[in-house]
């Protein structure tokens, strides 16, 4: 199977879908002539021309709304936010227009649109540029949220997203753009709401996505050295969420740790913990624990950034905690 970077996988997904369906277009800052701030749209302008790969002014609210308008008029826009930090300016359009279009029109209008871009800390981008906002979108009925970790998932979920009839929030990871992995050529459609079991182990279930999937895997390897076997589950989408996969694993391991990059209070993991305790109450031998980014605006300095982000060590510790091995 071909080896692609996460970036190339996203690029391939867009290229294939744009070739397949001429209603699909890409619009955002620097997506065209610059080939994308992170080069995700490399070559697309050349291939599809300026009406299908559109460089927009810095007007997140406006161009997100433009996308919604184009969607109700029959197109299938992909709107790129350079990062999701900037998308806060467009939050109103996603929540009040995209998510509600179908409902408030009584089903007359639909809004098939993908909003995509990078989220999370990269390397010392400081407080305004290092944020995770999965939960504020997953909270909204009418939206779906994908958080791919691997090149394969990036491609397969993006293709699914572009074909979906509802608005999608597609969150990529800046630090993963260069990561590589096997990706099927051509048609690859990964359904939303289907977790991937990354690793099997009978002692503890670790739920982690995107960057944290790799932190969790590293932690699992550390734990294995001490004879503790962890299952690592990557949900891949946060809305819908594959609760069955997690509950199935917890029924076997009786313990669960959730790892997330975002802030602790009201972060996505809280919902997962809630769902697990509610539906897996009798299976749990210990409370569900969460390892999260620290509850602070991200500081710039490298050692501080490192202190804020979840580490494999902290995951190991949490796993031992739920195993009462401390």
């Amino acid at each position, binding site marked *: 199977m071909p080896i692609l970077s996460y970036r190339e996988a996203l690029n391939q997904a867009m290229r294939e879908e744009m070739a397949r369906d001429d209603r699909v*277009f890409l619009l955002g800052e620097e997506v065209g002539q610059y080939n994308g701030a992170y080069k995700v749209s490399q070559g697309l302008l050349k291939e599809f021309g300026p*009406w299908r790969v*559109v460089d*927009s*002014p810095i*007007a997140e*609210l*406006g*161009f*997100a*709304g*433009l*996308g*919604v*308008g*184009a*969607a*109700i*008029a*029959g*197109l299938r*826009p992909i709107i790129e936010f350079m990062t999701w930090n900037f998308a806060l300016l467009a939050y*109103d*359009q996603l929540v*009040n*227009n995209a998510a509600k279009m*179908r*409902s*408030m*029109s*009584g*089903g*007359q*209008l*639909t809004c098939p649109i993908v909003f995509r871009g990078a989220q999370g800390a990269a390397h010392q981008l400081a407080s305004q540029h290092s944020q995770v906002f999965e939960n504020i979108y997953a909270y909204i*009925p*009418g*939206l*779906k949220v994908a958080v791919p970790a691997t090149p394969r998932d990036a491609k397969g979920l993006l293709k699914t997203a572009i074909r*979906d*009839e*509802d608005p999608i929030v597609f969150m990529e990871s800046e630090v993963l753009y260069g990561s590589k992995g096997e990706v099927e050529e051509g048609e690859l459609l990964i359904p*939303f*709401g289907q977790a991937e079991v990354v690793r099997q182990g009978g002692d503890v279930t670790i739920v982690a996505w995107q960057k944290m999937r790799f932190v969790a895997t590293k932690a699992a390897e550390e734990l294995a050295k001490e004879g503790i076997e962890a299952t690592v589950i990557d949900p891949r989408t946060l*809305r*819908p969420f594959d609760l069955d996969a997690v509950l199935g694993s917890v029924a076997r391991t009786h313990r669960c740790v959730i790892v997330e990059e975002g802030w602790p209070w009201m972060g996505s993991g809280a919902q997962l913990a809630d769902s697990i305790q509610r539906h897996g109450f009798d299976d749990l031998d210990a409370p569900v624990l969460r390892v999260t980014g620290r509850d602070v605006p991200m500081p710039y300095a490298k050692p501080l950034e490192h202190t804020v982000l979840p580490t494999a060590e902290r995951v190991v510790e949490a796993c031992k905690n739920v195993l009462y091995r401390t």
Partner: protein
Amino acid sequence: MAEATTATRSDAAPRAEGVAGGKQELLDLYRRMLLVRRFEEAAGRVYTEGKIGGFCHLYIGQEAVGIGVYTGLDPRRDYLVNAYRDHGHALAWGSSPDAVMAELFGKANGLAHGKGGSMHMFDAARHNFGGYGIVGGQIPLAVGVGFAQRYQKKDGVVVCLFGEAAVNNGAFWESLNMSAVWKLPVIFICENNRYGMGTSIERSSAVTDVWRRACAHDIRGELVDGMDVLAMRDAVARAAAECRGEGGKPVLLEARTYRYRGHSMADPATYRTRDEVEQQKKRDPLNVLLEHARARKLEIDQAELETLEGEIGKVVEQALKASEEGPNPDPSVIWTDVYASPDDPALHRDI
């Protein structure tokens, strides 16, 4: 200087000298405006009886804008994107009065089956792409619909309505710039009724000639008499011709108009004098049209007016009846039209 090429006050205003229509045409325009007037009066009445809930923003006084917009366009290929003061426009674009009223009643036979209510009148089949409740939030949508016209190589035009208070919101400016950069077929129409809720334009805007703001994006701005349906229709038709098809540029029209009622049914409108309102009512859009007819020696006589009133009265009565009698939506419909399928696992039906 540069202004001459950007925002130009139409010399034609305040009276339209457009293509003179025959009497039938004037009668038709009158009838359309009268329907809105009587419909809104009825809506206001039953609102106070508690039959309509939520916010209810009546269009009384602004009828000439709504009817002028519709009649200036080609509804087979053109589109409407609107704010929340939207009953009149929905009627103008041909939605059944029964369905609009039933929507206000929250009934299953309403335009949006009771899901949208007063602020969200959609009739997609008639190219009414909806009323939206976040001030300014609909403006970028119109740019997107306009983008789709160019993209699909269609020659449709999108008309986007908003109040004069919406132009202080960033969404307006971002939209103007994008539509100008990409030369999109969008007619931005500001319904300047002088107040945003209780704040007069003088208190909220440094520039009170809304049409002049077009200068910042090198698009044409024009002031139109929003009490004169012929002026409105002709200005919209001109603007449509100007932005339709490739190479056309967006236009900003400012329609000077006035709402006779409060901002919404909840607003006693104490921020303006009764005198001001009475003064404004003197140029009532219905009367302005009658004057036009008179000036053209096409006078619409009392008998004709009474016939029209009778006709419209029946339509409104029927709308009320259809709404009273319409079924309540079944509670289970809350789950539909959130996603394409009510069984989508993204929908958390139990928690």
